[in-house]
């Protein structure tokens, strides 16, 4: 076993390489405080989550460990090397990767019996390993704190008690990781599994582990291992089938054997009896999870959190104040005057401070309209996430979502979509099957208004409460109908739902702020450049007359759904940002061109209409160009047909327009 090369300060006399590698990999199940620990080790924040599956990518940072630059990576949640979800496969690729690294296995100190089977698998990689018993404070308060010294002795690797939220044990963990040696032999596969798995393997730890996963029926490894040594593979499969009756039997028997090893390891390390669940938690869950009380609570949370707080405080009070006072009052007049004074050329003045200018449109929309809404939305989302409500919501809505080819897990991307559809399209990666990911992508693009759009649409329609109701009702109907149809058209296995329910807890202010801040930063890093790009494109289009041409092309479609020609530009802006389109309607409403029926029709169509540029690019990245274009076509078709239908119905009912 070789160790990392980047060790400094070694004299020529040094024969043995210094222990430890210059790359640390944080591995662990979701919801054990892994990302918080990553933050403590690197000073960077990965999104900390009390929901399995919001960290979808490998975050990485650098730590200065006594003069050594250590690259620290935070892998997505992993329960077992026998992976189920895409995030688990991402994490597993990191673990099984060829490069040298030190694995820091982060576990919940209260749940060692559930976590240590993975520790045993990780030890079998032969890589240096440190076990971080995190959330030690909770374990202590519940009386289930493990004896880390005894556990370290039995495992033969360093075991450190940590509390990521307070920083306890972080330095000790870093010192242990910096000096961690490769684990002692003997942590490979237990017998008799090892004998069978050794046959098709190449002799090193990694290939034995891969052979184990292949024999356990993992589709990612079966073929490569079989191709490597077909004869030996066939022999191993025959031996496996004879003894365990197939891949499933092998997987269960091996997991059971590991569990027995873990229970033996933990004998005397943790108190014999598990602490009973707190009465308060069980009672709260009964209220939150039974449909009779749980569903009204969902509606109440949506109403208070999103409608009142995001819609009222964020999109109402804050937007008004920033737009009217900060921009119209303080910022825009001096900036416009300065631009006209400094830049002599009118087209460039327009580009900066004209009607579609970088400052007047791009920056103003981003800061005055989008920022307050996005901040308040992500704040509410982080609160729900940190207190452990989201998994309960997933459980509660599972049956309903099953009818749409989804499982309760889809709740996370769908709810996040109300904040930012682009981010939600990325997070849809955590869903298990391609079918679920496609359906969620389609629903996000079509029927889930993002917060920027939501703010503007609600702002316009708020004068007519009936219009808000019609708009929301139509969106919900489209959501359910399209989901139902998509589930029938797309082939695939029915989704399955399984989830560990984290304990309910009072949200920690620091976690909530960190989560909100991380997401808002991500949003602006991804979105603000596009806001500015869109402003440039619109300015150029306005100058060259291309905008007018394109507007004329849209006019027949706009007339078809019963709207005046003046609404066409709003749809065109919608190509660039969904909320630009909605904001365009805002101007029409103020000018009195559109009545309530027209506004409702326009708002429905704009909401259903194509996703913004950022979301389109994300769809292409995550699901491929063909899928992105298909979604685009479906969204356009559905938007104008539903818009036309709603317009026709509203006119037929009459009394409104």
């Amino acid at each position, binding site marked *: 076993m070789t160790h990392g090369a980047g060790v400094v300060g070694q004299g020529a006399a040094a024969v043995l390489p210094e222990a430890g590698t210059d790359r640390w990999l944080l591995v662990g199940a979701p919801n054990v405080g892994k990302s918080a620990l990553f933050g403590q080790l690197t000073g960077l924040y990965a999104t900390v989550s009390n929901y399995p599956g919001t960290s979808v990518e490998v975050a990485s940072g650098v730590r200065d460990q006594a003069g050594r630059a250590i690259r620290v990576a935070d892998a997505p949640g992993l329960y077992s090397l026998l992976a*189920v979800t895409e995030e688990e496969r991402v994490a597993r690729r990191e673990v099984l990767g060829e490069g040298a690294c030190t694995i820091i296995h982060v576990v919940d100190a209260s749940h060692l019996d559930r976590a240590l089977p993975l520790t045993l698998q990780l030890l079998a990689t032969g890589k240096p390993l440190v076990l971080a018993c995190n959330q030690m404070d909770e374990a202590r308060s519940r009386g289930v704190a493990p004896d880390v010294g005894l556990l370290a002795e039995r495992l033969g690797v360093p075991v450190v008690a940590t509390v990521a939220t307070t920083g306890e044990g972080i330095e000790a963990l870093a010192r242990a990781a910096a000096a961690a040696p490769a684990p002692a032999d003997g942590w490979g596969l237990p017998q008799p599994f090892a004998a069978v798995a050794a046959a098709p393997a190449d002799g090193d730890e990694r290939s034995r582990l891969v052979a184990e996963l292949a024999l356990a029926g993992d589709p990612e490894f079966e073929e490569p291992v079989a191709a490597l040594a077909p004869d030996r593979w066939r022999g191993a499969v025959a031996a496996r089938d004879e003894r365990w009756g197939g891949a499933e039997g092998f997987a*269960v028997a091996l997991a059971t054997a590991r569990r027995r090893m873990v229970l033996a390891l933990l004998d005397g390390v943790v108190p014999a009896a598990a602490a009973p669940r707190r009465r308060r938690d069980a009672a709260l869950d009964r209220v939150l999870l039974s449909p009779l009380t749980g569903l009204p609570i969902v509606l109440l949370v949506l109403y208070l959190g999103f409608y009142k707080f995001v819609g009222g405080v964020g999109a109402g009070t804050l937007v008004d104040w920033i737009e009217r006072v900060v921009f119209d009052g303080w910022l825009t007049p001096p900036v416009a005057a300065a631009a006209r004074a400094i830049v002599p050329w009118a087209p460039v003045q327009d580009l900066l401070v004209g009607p579609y200018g970088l400052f007047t449109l791009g920056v103003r929309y981003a800061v005055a309209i989008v920022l307050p809404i996005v901040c308040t939305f992500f704040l509410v989302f982080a609160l729900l996430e940190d207190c452990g409500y989201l998994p309960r919501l997933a459980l509660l809505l*599972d049956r309903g979502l099953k009818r749409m080819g989804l499982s309760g897990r889809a709740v996370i991307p769908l709810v996040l979509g109300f904040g930012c559809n682009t981010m939600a399209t990325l997070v849809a990666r955590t869903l298990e099957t391609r079918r679920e990911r496609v359906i969620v992508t389609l629903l996000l693009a079509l029927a889930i208004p993002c917060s920027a759009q939501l703010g503007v649409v609600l702002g316009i329609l708020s004068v007519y409460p009936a219009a808000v109701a019609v708009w929301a009702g139509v969106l919900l109907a489209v959501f359910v109908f399209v989901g139902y149809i998509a589930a029938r058209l797309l082939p695939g296995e029915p989704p*399955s739902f399984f*989830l560990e329910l984290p304990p309910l807890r009072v949200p920690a202010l620091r976690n909530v702020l960190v989560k909100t801040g991380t997401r808002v930063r991500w949003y602006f890093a991804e979105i603000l450049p596009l806001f500015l790009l869109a402003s440039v494109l619109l300015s150029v289009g306005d100058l060259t007359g291309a905008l007018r041409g394109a507007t004329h092309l849209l006019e027949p479609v706009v007339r078809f759904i019963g709207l005046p020609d003046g609404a066409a530009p709003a749809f065109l802006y919608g190509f660039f940002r969904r909320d630009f389109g909605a904001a365009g309607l805002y101007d029409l409403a103020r000018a009195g061109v559109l009545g309530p029926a027209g506004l409702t029709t326009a708002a429905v169509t704009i909401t259903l209409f194509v996703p913004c540029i950022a979301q389109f690019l994300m769809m292409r990245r995550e699901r491929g160009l063909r899928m992105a274009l298909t979604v685009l076509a479906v969204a356009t078709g559905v938007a104008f047909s539903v818009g036309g239908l709603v317009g026709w119905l509203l006119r037929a009912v009459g009394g409104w327009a």
Partner: protein
Amino acid sequence: MKCTMCGTTAGCSGCPIASDFYLPETLAALDVGARATVRRLASSSGDLRRLLALGVLPGVELEVERRWPAVVVRMGYATVALDAALAEGVVVSRGV
């Protein structure tokens, strides 16, 4: 898991051989408050991996907390939720 009697991997529901002896109880059939020990997993390979990820393994003791809208069980210190289809693949015996 493969049946040692007939070799099927489809589980025991509807099996005429098994019904002559006894009908193994599955997690899906347990009432709220029931305590049981997992005996074996009779699921397809995909479901099996999901159960293993949740830590539902032969020998594990559990208590049913809810049956609706999904099955919620307590295992040691952890609480896990699984849908009816997954719960049907978990063969249990009552008592711990």
